[in-house]
């Protein structure tokens, strides 16, 4: 089995990269506005569908069936596509895929290609490989074009330029777009779209080779499907004489009819639309209509390796809708670049380390980039239990490093050893209470500590910490007189009493707010 390579390896540990991104206030504001807008649209549109849960289950079941029969379905797809006039190529990893595509473009003699927005080509680093071979790849998706002109990398699966606002986009166009009329260019969306349209129209009319990915590949018929909003993809798929499509092996659906489920799930989950504006389907070559030469490059790049893990393999159900990114509170704060992979957000945190294996770059830090809040699982149209896979990958990481000494492992082991025995546990509670008692005098009525030593300093860097209570629950329980249907502490506001009311100051009526004076 081959490990995945390409633009899916985080160069920096997630906490380090996240700190860098958090420092950018403009980025935070842009992300917040954009993710909340898409989030609200998605919720509204999903709410219209009475059988949404059944659709999700169908989507998951169809994809699981694909994963269970992958070799058979891939061969079926290859046979059907070949019969229809396409040429099918196979690539084990990013380097092989890039070599195949570069070779195919070279054969045409073209030095420029137009591209349909595609995650697979971003994953394998195709633009960089083509550039090395002297071939210019022109991104035609508006957001990809913005990112390409800015010499930046995508930060979102669906909206790669989500980290920019329209003022920033105007600046990028004004300074980087060849032939743009700077004086008449405003930051109105219509003006920006018109500038991109003029720029791209010339490219569409001159290009002889187009490169795409595919949202779905139908095993039964050999058909590829691209779902998009702008129509620029349709231009690429129909105008040039040669079309090369780079497709991950997990993109298969068994039958044409299965599209019925996914064409309902995908637009609602991704853009919050009932139906996307352009859905293009093609099956090999149709004489007199569209490209005369059709190539399909099927890419593994770590997918077979991922498939071998019974828990982790559900990540391969992903249809790249990005609903999980838009609802993720971590993604919303740090953006896509913090994940160091073309697959950011919750899905990226489980996909990148599985495709590459945990030892690539800092990918082992990605499964910790989550509070396990579960918003991603709720939003996922194919029911990928992302929190479960995150925990599973953490566990795989811990198990793989069992032999090596680690302060965290020692702490976890000790804590587990203490907690599994009543006497040890009770003694530890008492020790914690006594040990912290001197601190109690420093906290005043607030009951909160401002500074704790390492490693708890990571907590008190940005929030106060509660102290152990003056009396543990079990000590209170041991000392109480069992009630006979009466109040055991008359005269109190609540049973909560005199120490930590949830550790954050007493709640005795009449004393309200004194601890904040």
């Amino acid at each position, binding site marked *: 089995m081959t490990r995945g390579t390409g633009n899916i390896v985080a160069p920096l540990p*997630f906490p380090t990269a996240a700190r860098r991104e*958090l420092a950018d206030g403009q980025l935070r504001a842009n992300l917040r506005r954009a993710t909340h807008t898409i989030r609200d649209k998605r919720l509204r549109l999903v709410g219209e569908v009475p059988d949404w849960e059944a659709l999700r289950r169908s989507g998951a079941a169809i994809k699981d069936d694909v994963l269970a029969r992958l070799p058979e379905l891939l061969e079926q797809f290859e046979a059907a596509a070949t019969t229809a006039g396409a040429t099918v190529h196979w690539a084990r990893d990013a380097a092989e895929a890039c070599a195949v595509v570069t070779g195919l473009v070279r054969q045409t003699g073209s030095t420029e290609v137009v591209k349909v927005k595609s995650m697979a080509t971003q994953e394998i680093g195709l633009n960089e490989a083509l550039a090395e071979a002297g071939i210019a790849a022109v991104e035609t998706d508006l957001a990809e074009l913005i990112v390409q002109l800015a010499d930046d990398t995508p930060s979102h699966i669906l909206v790669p330029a989500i980290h920019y606002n329209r003022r920033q986009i105007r600046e990028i166009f004004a300074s980087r777009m060849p032939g743009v009329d700077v004086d008449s260019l405003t930051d109105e969306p219509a003006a920006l779209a018109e500038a991109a349209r003029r720029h791209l129209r010339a490219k569409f009319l001159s290009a002889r080779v187009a490169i795409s990915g595919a949202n779905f590949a139908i095993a039964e018929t050999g058909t590829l499907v691209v779902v998009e909003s702008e129509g620029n993809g349709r231009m690429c798929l129909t105008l040039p004489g040669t079309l090369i499509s780079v497709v991950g092996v997990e993109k298969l659906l068994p039958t044409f009819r299965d599209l019925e489920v996914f064409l309902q799930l995908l637009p609602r989950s991704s853009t919050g639309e009932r139906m996307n504006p352009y859905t293009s389907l093609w099956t090999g070559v149709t004489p007199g209509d569209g490209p005369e030469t059709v190539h399909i490059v099927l890419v593994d790049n770590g997918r077979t390796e991922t498939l071998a893990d019974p828990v982790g393999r559900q990540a391969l159900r992903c249809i790249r809708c990005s609903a999980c990114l838009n609802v993720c*509170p*971590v993604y919303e*704060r*740090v953006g896509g670049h913090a994940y160091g992979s073309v697959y950011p957000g919750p899905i990226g945190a489980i996909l990148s380390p599985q495709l590459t294996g945990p030892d690539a770059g800092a990918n082992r830090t990605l499964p*910790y*980039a989550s*509070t*396990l*809040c*579960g*918003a991603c*699982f709720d939003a996922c149209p194919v029911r990928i239990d992302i929190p479960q896979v995150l*925990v599973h990958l953490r*566990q795989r*990481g*811990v*198990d793989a490093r069992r032999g090596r000494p680690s302060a965290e492992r020692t702490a*976890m*082991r000790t804590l*587990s050893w203490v*907690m*599994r025995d*009543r006497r040890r546990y009770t003694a530890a*509670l008492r020790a914690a209470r006594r040990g912290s008692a001197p601190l109690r005098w420093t906290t005043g009525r607030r009951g*909160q500590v401002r500074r704790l030593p390492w490693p708890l300093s*990571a907590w008190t*860097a*940005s*929030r*106060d*910490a*509660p*102290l*152990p*209570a003056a*009396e543990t*629950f*079990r000590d*209170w*329980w041991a000392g109480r007189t069992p*009630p006979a*249907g009466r*109040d055991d502490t*008359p*005269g*109190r*506001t*609540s*049973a*909560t009493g005199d*120490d930590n*009311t*949830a*550790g*954050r100051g007493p*709640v005795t*009526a009449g004393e309200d707010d004194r601890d*904040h004076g």
Partner: protein
Amino acid sequence: MRIALFVTCVNDLVFPGTGRAVVRILERLGHTVEFPLEQSCCGQMHANSGYRAESLPLVRGFVDTFTGYDAVVAPSGSCVAMVRDSYPRLAGSDPGLAAAVTDLAPRVYELSELLVDVLGVTDLGAWFPHRVTYHPTCHGLRMLRLGDRPLRLLRAVGGLDLVDLPGGEECCGFGGTFAVKNADVSAAMLADKCGAVRDTGAAYVAAADNSCLAHIGGGLSRRNRSDPGPGVRAIHYAEILASTAEGRS
């Protein structure tokens, strides 16, 4: 009905008032609460951090301690979610333990589930004359699907003015070891949550999980040091439900 209290390790040590509140609520309703002293920790931190082997003895301990009871109640959405959602997976390779988990897990309730679903009460005769906002913690919201149960209980409290928390369903940024491993992101999420809480004008932010509340309350307390402002305090909703008018005299 034999009701056992699983107080949770965090509450036992740091927030015993929450445990006392649960006892008081249930005894006021005429039930006898038992507190098996063998209990310690559900193992959530170990399991969620990837230490499955270290969590398993705690899973076994929990099952052994609570198997004989008709109902087990815990004032913590995340600990109950650990038992109901993660125990079956953790126990998977041990058929005996898996069977015991399958038997016990459905009888382990978060407080609002026990009160509303099992005991069929929402009005507990409580009195708490303050403005309160409620943060539905992630595990209660999305794993246990507590829905409006805690809110129904709070709405029945005398004198209480319940105000909506905008963006309430968003995580506060605690996430167990996440708060330490990804401290900067956690702090950014916390700042937004504290801002939303303060904007409600509430005197208290209530929730069903003291670990999330320690994080939110710690953030509010830190902010109050530099910007005294409205002085919102964090409180477990069980402590509100346990408060009575008689107690105020």
